[in-house]
């Protein structure tokens, strides 16, 4: 069993009208099964309302499945006595950078998680230092979070989770509210966590260029897993992605259009270098 495993997970919630009567039941997650290996970089893609965030919230026991089971590090998320262990081993970063920073000073915010866990004072300081260094925010440790840019705030949030020494970090659209520079900084920090610290990363996003480095991609639609595979496998299905309200990077789209026009190119081109290389081959051939 991997670090996170879901089996036939269904999540339903009731819609109520103004008087509080049940109007209907919405199924946000529909029979999802997945198994995530320790150390992997996983991306979960999907349009707004596809159920990807709801699924993510099952991975650190903020939500519980209506049916089916989720295991985090081998523990069933419904076992109440394991709740805090689960939340410690699977940390979560949310979308809005302003609404998840509790501390008034960067270092105090990063210390918040370890404080809650009852970590001794001296060790809290060590953890705060190493976490802030890991995301490149150590020199801002005395700053007020209100004065930071969006990308910097999200890096502080990541450090805050990192200081809890999790085995896995779930990032729920961490870049949706950032500008391109902020997005780049955050993605760089996330990749470093995976490469250097060997932490399992589950990145939920709808930006296609962010998933190129993932080991495995799941695409969600209507609460179900609609596609899964390596980024290359996913990106080779341009039409299918479009029907799921997603798009592909310009270079992949260009390669796809060229192929349609009879140019001989491999499937699922992800970078400019790949396309240029393939076209060069083409000219020779």
């Amino acid at each position, binding site marked *: 069993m991997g670090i996170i495993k879901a089996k036939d997970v269904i999540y339903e919630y009731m819609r109520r009208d103004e008087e509080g009567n049940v109007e209907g039941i919405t199924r946000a997650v529909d029979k999802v099964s997945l198994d995530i290996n320790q150390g992997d970089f996983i991306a979960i893609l999907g349009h*707004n309302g596809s159920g990807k965030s709801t699924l993510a919230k099952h991975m650190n026991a903020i939500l519980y499945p209506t049916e089916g089971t989720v295991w985090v590090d081998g523990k069933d998320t419904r076992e109440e006595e394991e709740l805090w262990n689960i939340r410690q081993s699977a940390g979560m970063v949310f979308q809005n950078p302003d609404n998840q920073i509790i501390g008034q000073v960067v270092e105090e915010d990063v210390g918040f998680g370890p404080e809650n866990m009852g970590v001794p004072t001296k060790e809290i300081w060590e953890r705060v230092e190493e976490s802030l260094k890991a995301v490149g925010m150590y020199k801002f440790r005395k700053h007020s979070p209100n004065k930071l840019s969006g990308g910097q705030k999200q890096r502080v949030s990541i450090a805050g989770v990192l200081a809890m020494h999790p085995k896995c970090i779930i990032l729920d659209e961490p870049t949706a509210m950032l500008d391109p520079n902020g997005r780049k900084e955050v993605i760089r920090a996330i990749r470093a966590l995976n490469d250097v610290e060997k932490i399992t990363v589950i990145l939920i996003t*709808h930006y296609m260029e962010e998933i190129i480095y993932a080991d495995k991609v799941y695409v969600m639609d209507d609460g179900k897993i609609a596609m899964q595979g390596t980024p290359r496998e996913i990106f080779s299905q341009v039409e299918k992605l479009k029907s799921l309200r997603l798009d592909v*990077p*310009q270079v992949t789209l*260009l390669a796809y259009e060229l192929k349609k026009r009879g140019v001989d190119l491999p499937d699922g081109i992800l970078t400019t270098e790949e396309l240029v290389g393939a*076209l060069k081959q083409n000219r020779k051939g």
Partner: protein
Amino acid sequence: MSLVLDHVSYIYGEDTPLSMKALNDICLEIPDGQFIGIIGHTGSGKSTLVQHLNGLIKASRGHIYYNGEDIDGKEFDKKKLRSNVGLVFQYPEHQLFEIDVFSDVCFGPKNLGLPQEEVEARAKEALAQVGLSEEFFTQSPFELSGGQKRRAAIAGVLAMKPQVLILDEPTAGLDPKGRDEILNQIKKLQTETGMTILLVSHSMEDVAEYVDRIIVMNQGSVMFDDEPREVFRHYKELEEVGLAAPQVTYIMHALKEQGMLVDVDVTTIAEATEEIVKCLETLH
């Protein structure tokens, strides 16, 4: 009929130790009917700039003329200006407040003091322009999906019948399809009504297909102001200030370096496809 900015500067907290220059000597002319993209990263002054155009912020130096009249002049009617130059803020759905979508859209025209009939006619027209059908009129704005909320909010400004429409990051937080839908709707609006549209964005790729002109803002100044293809020629300079030309620009330049005789000025995927196919055909 046009907007003219004449040496406009804006300084935050002037005469305090924390004063900061947000806009620096901006000169621009915005003629009628253009579709313009204003590009810059956070803090480049692009949002401050557009708030000057409908008089929400007063320039520290310089003058802004709407149809030849100084908007800070004594006789000038600011309220009228705000109906003529409509401004849709970032995440406009955060300003919805009425019990149903229709009443919310009516808020703007009602503030103009129009008769009830006219108010309702305008609201209907505006909702049609953003592609929201009648079934949504009676719904609470808070029950709509993200994309629908945003449309409702844009309709709220359109209902004031502006001649110039400014949208600050209208696609922020939307998924790719939602983004394309909104941008296409705006393009359609522009073609049908001939309205002047200013689209503030931090993504060149998003606006390249739609706009006639790109104004690049950097550190409170205008860095480039030209047709998209002319602006993207400076892709190296753009990169230095943390902005990027569309990926297709990079691809075309890389191909040219490899000795392929392609036009590096193309801005869209469709144009690029044609270019490459043409180039390969002449080879074979």
